């Protein structure tokens, strides 16, 4: 339930700021408190709908647990260290991209260039690192410069997306479609479509080092920490509040004093930075930068967000939901290999789950008097 407060005449700046806070607070309450609102239901609402609204956004976690247990029943190798590592490693790339995508989707936007940004920033860093390695440069310098290039490139492309979307008022889908196409090609230009395997040891070690006797690979740790940090940003900071507000009702947010254009630039820029980090993780995982890196990843990132409860109309979604959505996709991949089913079915399954998840969320929130 989002309230749109029309600012009346004679509102001062202070009032506008307070209204903005209040608007954003209502939006946050709405997203977090959908379960509470369900208690206003009368008995005439079907049991299923009431049950769904009570369960709240934890139902996707339940689905994840069910899937894991189902695979464990079908093959005894699911709850093993190796299966966990395989699942977690596979999910690193998609989780970071999905975290980036969550911010964007909550602003009622979409970014289908996340995969291309990942690939391009990874290849940029790798090209520079390979160049520097053939000269007289210390290993530390190569690594620092290389990683910096990856992050800055991602950030720059993200900012570019955000600027075009907010200044020229073009639909995010179109703008990011353009940058996806352009930067997919640009990645090939960077190194003639070939991959780069001469990289500093630090990068490949990043992919193979793990803590706790192998239970926690470094890239997985990085991805989880990023998710946690971004989750806190989303739920507990002004930046997060403004993100929800902009997605919930951009006009109201603007009138209430939020610098929507600037905020969008920050959001897309931040997402681009995260894609750069994902590019580093992928390069570390494969010990090489490939022009195919990130290809088609944007679809899985969006799927993870939707499964996790984010609404493509904006204003709704949580980082925890995105984490569960990514986990569901990764578990499916590992599980299907373990029960010897071909890889194609993974995509079929994910597609079905995306639609089901969106459908359930729709029912659940309808019964809670949501839009």
């Amino acid at each position, binding site marked *: 339930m989002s309230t749109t407060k029309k600012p009346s005449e004679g509102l001062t700046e202070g009032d506008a700021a307070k209204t903005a806070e209040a608007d954003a607070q209502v939006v946050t309450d709405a997203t977090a408190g959908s379960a509470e609102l369900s208690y206003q239901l009368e008995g005439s609402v079907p049991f299923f709908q009431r049950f769904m609204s*009570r*369960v*709240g956004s934890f139902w996707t976690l339940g689905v994840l647990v069910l899937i894991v247990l189902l695979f464990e029943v079908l093959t005894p190798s699911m*709850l093993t260290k190796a299966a966990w590592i*395989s699942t977690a490693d596979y999910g690193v790339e998609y989780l970071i991209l999905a975290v980036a995508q969550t911010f964007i989707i909550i602003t009622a936007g979409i970014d289908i260039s996340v995969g291309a940004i990942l690939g391009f920033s990874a290849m940029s860093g790798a090209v520079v690192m390979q160049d520097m390695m053939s000269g007289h440069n210390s290993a530390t310098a190569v690594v620092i410069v290389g990683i910096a290039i990856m992050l800055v490139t991602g950030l720059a492309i993200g900012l570019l997306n955000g600027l075009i979307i907010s200044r020229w008022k073009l639909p995010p889908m179109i703008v990011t479609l353009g940058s996806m196409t352009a930067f997919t090609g640009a990645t090939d230009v960077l190194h003639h479509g070939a991959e780069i395997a001469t990289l500093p040891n630090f990068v490949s070690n990043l992919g193979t080092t793990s803590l706790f006797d192998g239970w926690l690979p470094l890239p997985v740790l990085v991805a989880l920490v990023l998710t946690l940090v971004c989750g806190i940003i989303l739920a507990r900071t002004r930046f997060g509040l403004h993100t929800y507000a902009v997605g919930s009702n951009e006009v109201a947010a603007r009138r209430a004093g939020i610098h929507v254009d600037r905020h969008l630039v920050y959001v897309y820029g931040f997402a681009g930075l995260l894609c750069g980090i994902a590019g580093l993780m992928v390069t570390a995982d494969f010990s090489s930068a490939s022009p*195919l*890196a990130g290809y088609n990843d944007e679809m899985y990132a969006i799927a993870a967000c939707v499964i996790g409860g984010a609404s493509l109309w904006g204003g709704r979604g949580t980082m925890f939901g995105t984490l569960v959505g990514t986990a569901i996709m990764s578990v499916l991949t*590992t599980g299907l290999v373990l029960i010897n089913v*071909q890889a194609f079915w993974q995509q079929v399954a994910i597609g079905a789950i995306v639609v089901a998840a969106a459908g359930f969320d729709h029912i659940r929130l309808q019964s809670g008097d949501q839009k």
Partner: protein
Amino acid sequence: MLHSSKRSRAAWFRYTAGAAAVAAMAVSLAACGSSSSSGSTHKHYTIALVPGLTTDPFYITMGVGAKAEAKKLGVTLTWQGGNAFTAETQMPVVSSLLAKHPDALLIAPTDVTALKAPIQKFVNAGIPVFAVDTTINDTSLLTARITSDNVQGGKVAADAIAKLAHDKGDVAVLINTPGISTTDARRQGFIEEMKKYPNMKVVATEYYNDSASTAESQVRDLLLAHSNLVGVFGSNIYGAQGAGAAIAAAGKKGKVFVIGYDAEPATVKMLKNGAINGLVIQQPALEGKLAVEYAYDKLTGKSSKIPKYTQIPNVVATTANASDPNITKYYYMSAFSGS
């Protein structure tokens, strides 16, 4: 407004449901333990074969040969792979397979660098790894390698083109993607052998990214740019198909010759009707058979019998002998038939 009691009731329910789900997961994990040890006794072995991709007739033929040998030896062969020849699709399969702890891993690595880490994990877990077709940079991790003699393949392709073109003219090489050990070796062999023909020159190397349509447009451009082009060497099926199609479309069939690699059904058809003039055919079924045989030898303690590196010669087919039963038995299959 919401009553605080209702809000706390809802919150309580939510947190309990969440906690219960997490607890259930934790209990299951604890109960089943984190053991990834082998469940198989040493009477019945399970060998995992991971092809470059599961839909390519070359690898399917390898699978057929492997399965036949497995059946003969009484071992179980599992067949699992990605649906594209990329490290991105193959890595998750290999990593997940580790959880099933097969007794041996036969793999056609899709990347010389990226697959090293997962293969290392198998070796660390005591599972011997055999590379078929392609390989990785660090061959010390492998118990044995089996591949076709790709350098010889490039050489016989060069000789075949030279013969068809009467030792005169320009030729071009079409390569899938750089960085794959097999196709790099074919190119190397081709270019080396071409040096023996003073009136022939390699004028271009194109990379077609495993796409026949890209190969087709590249050859179309080559035909326009080099009027003296007499031959194209397509280093795998898609290159040959694309080249053959472009040459036929330009009306140069019979004037520009295509030597391809691999005998998939579609390529064989093109060979028989002359769109492709020659094929270098590998023996994937034999590779698969040997891989299973060596793995079994390793598992039954006969490792001294295993050659570290086996190179299998190629067979050359031309439009002339395309229907000879001695040649057709090498053609690849596009599906597993029966068991």
